[in-house]
């Protein structure tokens, strides 16, 4: 169809303007890739943390849901008993310490599913019914809180980029289409229909967006890992050394909080859809604003 052919020819005819438009689009797409990468990373970190804390087990007296440090009842289980419990085959290890104000003990399951088997094992080893064997909720809460902060940070970052990106795209497209008012007027005067003019301009925008998407994916993918690493590093420093978190992190099967970020196919598709929608909305707003006039008005209003 000649409209598309005309659009493709136009791409090459206005290199300066198209490159400017492309650079801005590229920046927005790259930022989106990084933001989406970080968002997906925090999700992975939270899942990992949940898996890790699900493996951290405490023994608590019935009637107390949260472990709040030393307690007289818990000290009823002796250090020797804890050490005996730690010989269970369902765990990879345990942290047992006597601070002088009471014994604290955390056991690390080989797999979160083994909680039941571990409990039976402990009962066999003489754990009284007055004690429950449960996951370390306090540790999960304290570990996940900073990561959830990070995740909401990344969501905010993504929203800011998308909103700012949308505004910038609308403005830039509006300016670049205003510059082409004369050309649009000429096409309309020659009898090209509004729909065709709009389709041609849209096709140009979409081609530019697709090129920027490919380049932006490359740059974004390269940037996401270092950005993620530095944010995670900053986050764990900001969180400070919490004893529970440290213990979880030191646990044998708990990965340190570094995550290999990869932009998945789904993520790329989402970013592609976002880019196309942003560019189309920006384009359609500007195009309809100009093509609604009679051709003579578009031609006369050239400035």
């Amino acid at each position: 169809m000649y409209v598309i052919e005309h659009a493709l020819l136009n791409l090459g005819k206005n290199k300066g303007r198209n490159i400017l438009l492309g650079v801005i689009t590229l920046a927005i797409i790259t930022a989106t890739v990084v933001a989406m990468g970080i968002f997906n990373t925090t999700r992975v970190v939270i899942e990992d943390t949940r898996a890790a804390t699900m493996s951290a087990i405490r023994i608590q007296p019935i009637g107390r849901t949260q472990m709040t440090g030393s307690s007289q009842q818990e000290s009823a289980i002796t250090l020797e008993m804890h050490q005996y419990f730690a010989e269970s085959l369902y765990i990879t290890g345990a942290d047992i310490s006597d601070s002088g104000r009471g014994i604290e003990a955390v056991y690390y399951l080989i797999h979160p599913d083994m909680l039941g088997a571990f409990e039976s094992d402990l009962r066999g080893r003489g754990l009284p019914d007055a004690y429950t064997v449960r996951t370390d909720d306090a540790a999960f809460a304290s570990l996940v809180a900073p990561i959830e902060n990070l995740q909401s940070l990344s969501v905010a970052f993504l929203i800011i980029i998308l909103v700012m990106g949308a505004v910038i795209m609308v403005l830039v497209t509006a300016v670049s289409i205003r510059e082409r008012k004369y050309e649009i007027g000429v096409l309309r005067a020659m009898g090209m229909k509004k729909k065709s003019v709009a389709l041609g301009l849209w096709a140009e925008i979409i081609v530019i967006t697709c090129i920027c998407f490919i380049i932006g994916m490359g740059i974004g993918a390269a940037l996401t890992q270092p950005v993620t690493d530095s944010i995670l590093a900053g986050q764990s420093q900001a969180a400070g050394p919490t004893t529970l978190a440290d213990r979880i992190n030191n646990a044998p099967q708990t990965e340190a909080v570094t995550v290999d970020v990869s932009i998945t196919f789904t993520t790329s598709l989402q970013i592609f859809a976002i880019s196309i929608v942003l560019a189309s909305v920006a384009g359609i707003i500007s195009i309809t604003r100009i093509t609604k006039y009679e051709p003579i008005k578009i031609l006369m209003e050239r400035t």
Partner: protein
Amino acid sequence: MKCLELMDVSYRYEGSKDYVLKKISASFEAGKVYAIVGESGAGKSTLLSLLSGLDSCKEGTILYNGKNLQEIDRDEYRSKNVGVIFQNYNLLLNSTAVYNITLSMKISGDMASKEQAYALLKNVGIDRETTDRKILKLSGGEQQRVGIARALAHNPDVIIADEPTGNLDEKTEAEILEIFTHLAQEDGKCVIIVTHSDNVSSVGDVVYRIAGGKISTIG
């Protein structure tokens, strides 16, 4: 046969309370050359934009082959039935002369033939070397000629020209006028030319004058 007919047409620009055209009536037939004269600011270009469907006529009626221009698809009317030569050319500046012509053919739905485009350009005195240059790099006179060739590219019934020879030397002017009279007499086109030049108005079978928002016939 009446090709275009104005009936009680009035026009004023948006935001202006003065009428440029006041209830004017006139008719244009196929096979004739019409010259429209009048002082600067009289409303000649305004009338042409109404006749060519570039603007809509909200008061009064313009008929093209008996059909109300307000009721037909004016995009199609411009692309197929009317060829306009603008005072300021209105060509695609970043495209070549030949592309301006072939695009006009494509918009009208015709098969675009480069050979035909070269022939049209040659007819208005644009040589082969110039046809492949961007409009930006052409002189005013050359652009005017490309504008004329483009107006003829889709073989319209009506040719409307606003000062089409204003930028041409006398010899070229004579050649262009020859083309216009040929189009009317041999091909049966309706040719409407706005002009300041007596040379041009002398080829008009009918000369209209616009003054004070009214139209009248001269001679």
